[in-house]
């Protein structure tokens, strides 16, 4: 009996995102056609950017990793009823802090340096989320505005640092010194960009899943997200949960930044994030804020992101087209989550209710 229900639920949770993605692909194809781009060639270019060879597959993994972290960051905050639009800034804070440690601690042994960098990055991300979190908890200040502003502030800070004290003068564009070699993430397959970061990302997703759905604290978070007033009556310290949710959310985004620095770029520059935090919102929404689902949707958006630049190269269509696909996907998911469209189960339910009422009458 129980298995039956969870099977049905599985089907329902997977059914909606799939329909939404298909619908979004149709709409995006229409838009592409409208602007006179060849659909098969465009999607072909996107496909080849990820699945042409082992090397391109490494690019896909490399792009998926930060999206997975940012998606997790958004997922946990949305589960807690906090709209953290600030994963972007928290990610950047993580890159800055870990890169700083990675440059300063040149003489340290690799293992120690890696641990320090991870701690610094996660801490920086958490701090960057803590301020909006405490403002919301204490003064009821809308976290949407503050987290967005913190994104811009983080961006300006990284711009300032890479032009002044952290600037590597041997490079033409403003960027920081590289981090110490012993802190570089080992590559999983040599000759590709696939590094151990993706493993950490998947492990983090599982940990967050367990935290959210198998621990009392996760229960508190979800209860607060579902109904703040009820949580208050249940004796949950809602404000404290908000702050803790933001701390974890920011810490994970910061970890994403650490992995990006240690595994991929090895230095920081102004455009290091490339909108990962904002895409993280799409990743999380598509996965219905479920950490395990986030793994799959991060793969999808990583796939789109990887394909975007090759689409620009091959088709001359703006790489930003993936933003359009993302937006359309989110809209379809959001609509399907709140209305009866696309839902085959609710109709049955309603019918059952009607029948019940008739029986009563």
């Amino acid at each position, binding site marked *: 009996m129980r298995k039956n229900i969870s099977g049905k639920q599985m089907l329902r949770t997977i059914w909606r995102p799939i329909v939404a993605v298909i619908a979004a692909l149709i709409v995006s194809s229409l838009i592409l056609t409208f602007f006179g781009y060849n659909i098969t060639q465009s999607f072909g270019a996107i496909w080849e950017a990820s699945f042409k060879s082992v090397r391109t597959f490494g690019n896909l993994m490399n792009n998926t990793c930060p999206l997975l972290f940012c998606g997790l960051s958004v997922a946990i905050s949305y589960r807690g009823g906090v709209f953290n639009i600030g994963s972007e800034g928290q990610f950047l804070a993580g890159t800055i802090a870990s890169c700083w440690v990675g440059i300063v601690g040149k003489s340290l042994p690799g293992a120690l340096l890696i641990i320090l960098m991870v701690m610094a990055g996660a801490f920086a991300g958490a701090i960057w989320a803590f301020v909006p979190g405490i403002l919301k908890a204490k003064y009821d200040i809308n976290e949407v505005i503050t987290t967005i502003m913190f994104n811009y502030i983080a961006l300006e800070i990284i711009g300032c640092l890479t032009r002044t004290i952290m600037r590597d003068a041997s490079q033409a564009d403003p960027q920081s010194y590289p981090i110490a070699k012993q802190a570089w993430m080992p590559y999983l397959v040599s000759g590709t960009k696939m590094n151990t970061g993706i493993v950490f990302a998947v492990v983090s997703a599982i940990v967050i899943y367990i935290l959210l759905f198998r621990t009392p604290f996760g229960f508190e978070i979800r209860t607060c997200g579902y109904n703040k007033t009820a949580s208050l009556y249940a004796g949950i310290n809602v404000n404290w949960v908000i702050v803790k949710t933001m701390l974890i959310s920011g810490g994970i985004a910061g970890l994403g930044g650490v992995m990006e620095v240690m595994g991929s770029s090895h230095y920081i520059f102004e455009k290091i994030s490339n909108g990962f935090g904002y895409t993280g919102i799409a990743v999380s929404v598509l996965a219905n804020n479920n950490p395990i689902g986030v793994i799959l949707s991060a793969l999808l958006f990583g796939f789109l992101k990887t394909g975007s630049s090759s689409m620009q190269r091959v088709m001359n269509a703006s790489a930003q*087209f993936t933003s359009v696909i*993302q937006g359309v996907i989110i809209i379809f998911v959001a609509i399907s989550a709140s209305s009866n469209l696309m839902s085959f189960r609710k109709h049955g339910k309603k019918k059952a209710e009607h029948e019940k009422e008739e029986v009563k009458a």
Partner: protein
Amino acid sequence: MTFFLTSTIRMAVPLMIAALGLVLSERAGLMNIGVEGIMLLGCFFSFFTSYRTGNVWLGLLAGLAAGLVGSLVFAVCSITFKASQIVVGCAMNMLGSGLTAVMFRKYFMDQDVNGALSSSFQNMPIPLLSKIPIVGDALFNHNIIVYIGFILVAVVWFVMNRTSIGIKVIAVGEHPKAADSMGINVFRVRYLATAFSGLMMGLAGTYLAIAQSNTFQTDMTGGKGYIAMAVVVLGQWKPEGVLIGALIFGASNALQMTIQNSNLNIQYNLVLAIPYIVTVVAVLISGRKHIMDASAKGTPYIKS
């Protein structure tokens, strides 16, 4: 000094116009964070039309229409389909940013970076008043959208405080169910409020594109839509408050520009961060009093 005052007004106006629209839609119970993306649509279409036709007024119409269409997409999703307003807002931002970037690349790829210049609204000094020393040039020598913006403040104030429309909007935002039982069509009021706010976002975008800069750049709004949301909080959801709030933000932007133009040796990224920091501080100071914020904000109305 005149430069500072002039830039204050120039930077304040787009925030003020967008915030005016947001006042109405937020009081009606809608949290539209898609303002950034919708403004971008307004930017691109006004620029595109003005560039192609050479007529700024057609550009203005196109910008308004783009804002209207963008806000209607938001309205259909969040009012009719009751989707989460914040999620849809995020999607609108991605759509706005993505679509305009795609179109800009498609139609203006051949131009070099600053090559594509459109015709734009010219300054219209008001006779006599603009001759007042220092203040005259700063206050009364602007393009027409600036004047329209200030007139709109009065118009929105009048509508919100002296007409039944204003009462309906507030009722719908505070307690949609009660409003419904009084015979107010909640959906229609919310749709109209969103449509008006869309027009304002389009106008703000138009101002940025063909009154302030004569050109379009990818993501040229640079967070101005979000700052407009902060202006609404700062202005306590009132048109007259929005006017003051926008001027404060305009001043912080003007300060940033003045510092950049001066010989002070401050790293320019730090200077660029000033408006964002001011936003956080301003929201912190004013955000504690939520009296005028709509109680039902962010929640869809489900008629049962």
